[in-house]
């Protein structure tokens, strides 16, 4: 195994991991705090991608403004979903899951009608290829990696050091106790959903730049989010980060050395084993 193979593998692995973690994070938040399995989470990512396409490509808004604005717009849309679709169903896990499935189908098919079905790419301002130590590293991937890491760091700081972040963590641990302390659980749910949708949308924006954007693209990140969250533990934020890194790196390795099918088998096999032996994941909490 030569260095010339290792570096691309590492670089690719980290890059894609960061995006997956952004998306999985929102997914695990929604589950951890509201016990909702959000099948439409991939579609938030997809909408983020289209928002960026519209703002940056169609309206010509500068990239560094379009990026956060696009994500925030989708976050706001997420609030609508929370209010009208999920809130009436809190406490009914199964119904919430099926409702999110309906939302997923509705959003992706609406996108097909609005935007046509073919895949497209968002031309980024960064199409150079930078040589670092003899290895060609695409500039857009570097930028995407930087943005993703910054977003994750920002999120962690937020959760750790702000009052809202504290409220989030408290409600996640024990809703009743939190309410007894005077924390408004409902407002917390809204904030959670907004954050989750925004993060997913950001992930989708980054994804759409280095991969491709299409109305059905949400399914892949959702599948990865499932896997990451199982590995890391449903509801655990550091778990999502760990799971994302593990998944991204192992996929990169396995795909390079053993081909895609084996990587897939290994992936599902690992999930099944984990669920059997340690269903709360590596960093989750065992539920009673």
């Amino acid at each position, binding site marked *: 195994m030569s260095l010339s193979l290792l570096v691309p593998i590492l670089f690719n692995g980290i890059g894609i991991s960061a995006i997956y973690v952004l998306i999985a994070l929102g997914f695990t938040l929604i589950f951890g705090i509201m016990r909702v399995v959000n099948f439409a989470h991939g579609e938030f990512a997809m909408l983020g991608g289209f928002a960026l396409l519209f703002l940056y490509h169609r309206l010509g808004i500068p990239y560094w403004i379009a990026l956060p604005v696009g994500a925030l717009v989708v976050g706001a849309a997420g609030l609508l979903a929370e209010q009208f679709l999920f809130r009436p169903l809190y406490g009914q896990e199964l119904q919430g899951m*099926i409702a999110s499935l309906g939302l997923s189908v509705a959003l992706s098919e609406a996108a097909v009608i609005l935007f046509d079905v073919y895949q497209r790419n968002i031309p980024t301002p960064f199409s150079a290829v930078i040589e670092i130590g003899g290895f060609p590293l695409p500039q857009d991937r570097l930028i995407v990696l930087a943005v993703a890491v910054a977003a994750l760091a920002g999120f962690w700081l937020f959760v750790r050091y702000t009052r809202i972040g504290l409220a989030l963590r408290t409600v996640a641990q024990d809703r009743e106790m939190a309410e007894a302390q005077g924390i408004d659980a409902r407002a917390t749910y809204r904030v959670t959903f907004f954050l989750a949708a925004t993060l997913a949308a950001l992930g989708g924006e980054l994804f759409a730049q280095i991969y491709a954007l299409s109305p059905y693209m949400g399914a892949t990140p959702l599948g990865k989010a499932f896997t990451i969250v199982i590995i890391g533990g449903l509801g655990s934020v550091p778990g999502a980060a760990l799971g994302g890194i593990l998944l991204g790196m192992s996929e990169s390795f396995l795909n390079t050395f053993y081909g895609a099918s084996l990587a897939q088998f290994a992936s599902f096999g690992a999930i099944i084993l984990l669920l059997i032996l340690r269903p709360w994941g590596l960093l989750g909490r065992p539920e009673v």
Partner: protein
Amino acid sequence: MARPAVLAPAAARRVRLWLAAAAAAAFLLVWPLLVEDAFFTHMATLVLLYSIGAASLHLVVRIGHLSLCHAAFLGLGGYASALLTTRLGWPFLPAFVASGLVPAAVALVLGPILLRLRGVYFVLITYSFGELVRLVFVEWQSLTGGSDGIFRIPPPHPALLTSRAYYYFALAMAALCVGFVARLLASPAGRFIDAIRESERLARSSGVPVLRFKVMVFALACGLVGLQGSLLAHFIHYVSPGAYGFAESLNFLVINVIGGMGSLAGPLVGTVFLVSLPELLRGWVQYQRLLYGVVLMAVILYVPGGLAGIGKRTLELIPGLRRSRP
């Protein structure tokens, strides 16, 4: 003055129910003869076949678990039947039986592991398992033909090549399978199933090994949907991995939820609704799936008991079918 010969209210109600059932049965038997269009019998046959799988998933729902891999077992049955008839030249009947036994056996072996998990974790592990099985269908090309699938699967009998003929065959099979599930649920075993779902701890105290019982029910359910797999394979004459993935498993689940999970009527109503819905919406091809998603959300939000719940309330409005109140 002689008392008029009137049946007691409960008995009268039962007579009316039987009459209604007989009328429904007569309708089911006669309508294909009156309709020329083979398309309707084709659709009706699909509805009948899917009702088997939907009813079998209902069994799993009744023991308190939501399986997202039901289509994998559908596939195991379909491939078993297809391979045995096309590669080994088996006649239909033994292949059909095998198509029930193979998925049941797999469920029996894996059940003890899978059924230990509950709630969301069970959903996740069945999702992963379903994907794994689909991968096997795709990758094991020498056995399954890979993504190409298996073609020219023969009908169970040369006479069963037309939609109408197959309709009656499917009607008989569906009646048998669904009837079996109904009998099971009405029996003491059925009451135990409900007891397990409602309180597993309490059920355990009765002395019956709960996990083993759940595995038996699970294996039964998977065997039944395997039978559907065989019947479908010999109807469409083609099997391929694409038909046995996550989307299909989700379909079964959605049928149960929208139809209503409280009783067996739920999946039956759900099957009629959801298998024919894409056909009803074919006029607007682009909007078809969009409507599907919207309808799904609407039903979940506004019709919590499922469609069967509405149906029950409507039926109760019919005098004579309402239970008399004390």
